[in-house]
């Protein structure tokens, strides 16, 4: 079998030490040619997916140059003429931009600080249950909202926060006055974060529960022998056990920090709520699609995407240094 494999994959034979660096490109080309001859069927499977990535992922990335060129509808998707940093200067001097930038930061920080820890807490709570059936029922229910369309979630939010909806019924029952939630900007953040919690927290527990199930039970026994009570066992065994998972998910969350629930906000907000609800993504949607200022909106989008990329890269680098866990 081994010999057979050597025949089929001759490339695995170590190449002779190269003495002349000038010959290397030639050699490389030859091994590529050999690899293609051997695996052409595998390469042929790659063609269409790579075409997909090229056209629908990388061309739009290059299409970002219209942030620096003037785009005319009907013209080239890469724009007509260079205008340099014109559009960047435009949004830096745009007071609305700074307002939506601030809203994005606030919603991003709130999501990170409030929503990130909750799945950990819920997973720990579920982990303490002894009845497997009870645990499974609670899990099944908590996952359900994750499978709902964002349109449905928006519909449910409207239904519950209506003037005669359940929330206002509770408020009037305890003697308060009904609140027009969807007309008051000061309520938007609460509503947004609550609906995010409802929709995402249960599903977020999955990876933590998987990580919890891999912790070696001997560690608990050792801790118990050392006199640790349940709380100390959780602190010294359980939490360190799921730390790598926590770090990876934290990095991912930081990466999507700027991309706060665009679709949900687009569905939920109205001009009355703009002071707190309008984020970079919704603003660039209105500017770009709504008013057809493609170049300007692209400049804003590029700025947003670059912040996201920087955040992911630095979070990853920091966590690799500090805790030794990273995405790559």
């Amino acid at each position, binding site marked *: 079998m081994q010999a057979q494999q050597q025949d089929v994959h001759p490339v695995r034979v170590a190449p002779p030490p190269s003495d002349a660096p000038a010959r290397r490109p030639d050699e490389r080309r030859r091994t*590529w040619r050999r690899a293609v001859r051997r695996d052409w069927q595998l390469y042929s499977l790659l063609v269409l997916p790579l075409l997909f990535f090229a056209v629908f*992922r990388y061309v739009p990335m290059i299409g970002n140059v219209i942030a620096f060129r003037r785009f005319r509808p009907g013209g080239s998707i890469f724009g007509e003429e260079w205008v340099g940093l014109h559009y960047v200067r435009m949004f830096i001097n745009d007071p609305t931009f700074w307002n939506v930038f601030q809203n994005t930061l606030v919603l991003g920080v709130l999501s990170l600080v409030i929503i990130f820890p909750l799945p950990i807490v819920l997973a720990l709570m579920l982990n303490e249950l002894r009845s497997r059936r009870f645990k499974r029922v609670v899990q099944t229910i908590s996952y359900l909202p994750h499978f709902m369309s964002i349109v449905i979630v928006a519909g449910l939010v409207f239904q519950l926060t209506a003037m005669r909806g359940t929330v206002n019924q509770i408020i009037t029952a305890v003697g308060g006055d009904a609140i027009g939630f969807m007309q008051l900007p000061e309520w938007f953040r609460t509503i947004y974060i609550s609906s995010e919690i409802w929709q995402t927290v249960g599903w977020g527990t999955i990876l933590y529960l998987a990580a919890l199930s891999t912790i070696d039970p001997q560690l608990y026994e050792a801790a118990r022998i050392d006199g640790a009570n349940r709380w100390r066992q959780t602190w010294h065994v359980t939490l360190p056990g799921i730390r790598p998972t926590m770090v990876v998910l934290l990095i991912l969350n930081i990466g999507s920090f700027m991309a706060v629930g665009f679709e949900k906000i687009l569905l939920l907000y109205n001009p009355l709520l703009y002071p707190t609800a309008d984020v970079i993504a919704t603003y660039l949607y209105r500017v770009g699609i709504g008013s057809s200022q493609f170049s300007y909106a692209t400049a804003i989008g590029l700025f947003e995407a670059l912040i996201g990329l920087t955040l992911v890269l630095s979070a990853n680098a920091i966590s690799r240094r500090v805790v030794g866990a990273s995405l790559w």
Partner: protein
Amino acid sequence: MTVENVTRLDERLSKPTVRAVKDTRAYTAFRIVNATLLVVIAALTLYPFVNLAAQAFSSESYINAGQVNLWPQGFNLTTFDLVMSDRMFWRNYQNTVYYTVVATVVAMFLTTTFAYAISKYHLRGRTVFIGIAVFTMFFNGGLIPNYVLVNELGLRNSVWAIALPNAISVFNLLVMKSFFENFSTELEEAAEIDGLSTYGKLARIVLPLSKAVIATMVLFYAVSFWNSWFAAFLYMDHRELYPVTVYLRNLIAGATSVDGAAGSAEATQIAANVKAVTMLLTVLPIVCLYPFVQRYFVSGVMLGSVKQ
């Protein structure tokens, strides 16, 4: 967790000594509080759905009076008749089914072929191909360049505007890749000796033995396409082309009216129970399938997390 670990765990759990440790009073109290809290959390999670169902079967006046919470008031099915007899609703419902099927087929084809190729360790350039895919998780072209591209390609008002731009989810791709990496190499080598080409191996050996992961991926894609609305919202210009999610979005935003209700003077004021019924009909397939397919999703996500 290895098999060895599992058996050792089973032994431990069956040993009486583990259970014989008596709970302290504080821990018992904690367990009761914990279980109660979880029941409350589950109830709160379910409440919006219960409320939705209650409103769907209630009559309008009770909803407007704020009297419908857990149970329908003024039970009636006329709203169902009204929504069901709306031609546009059915048209859009059919569109959703059609878009979901086409998009899922395209997505599965591209994801499977790519995942299979990059699961082969000996493939030259493998890490580059993986990198090409993974990089798009962290950086993307953004809304406007994508929008311009789809329009330039002439995909507007066709199913391809929904199916093609979202054809590969990198997360699903990585799940399939790690599944194929764990596939028995002996089996494939045996098939190769028997004269099967790469295509033959994939079609006759690997795919038939990968039904579990394929089913999971089909579910992932189908649910996400069923639920999606934004692509159609951007690229579809006619009401007849909308999926039901866009129909629903317009209903919620007060821009569409059900044919039967259109006669009234305030056509934009859509009755609360009409909204509830439409939402209920939209989530129905998912809610009905959900108990049966939920565990596949869970195992799929766990499979994807193995590599991380």
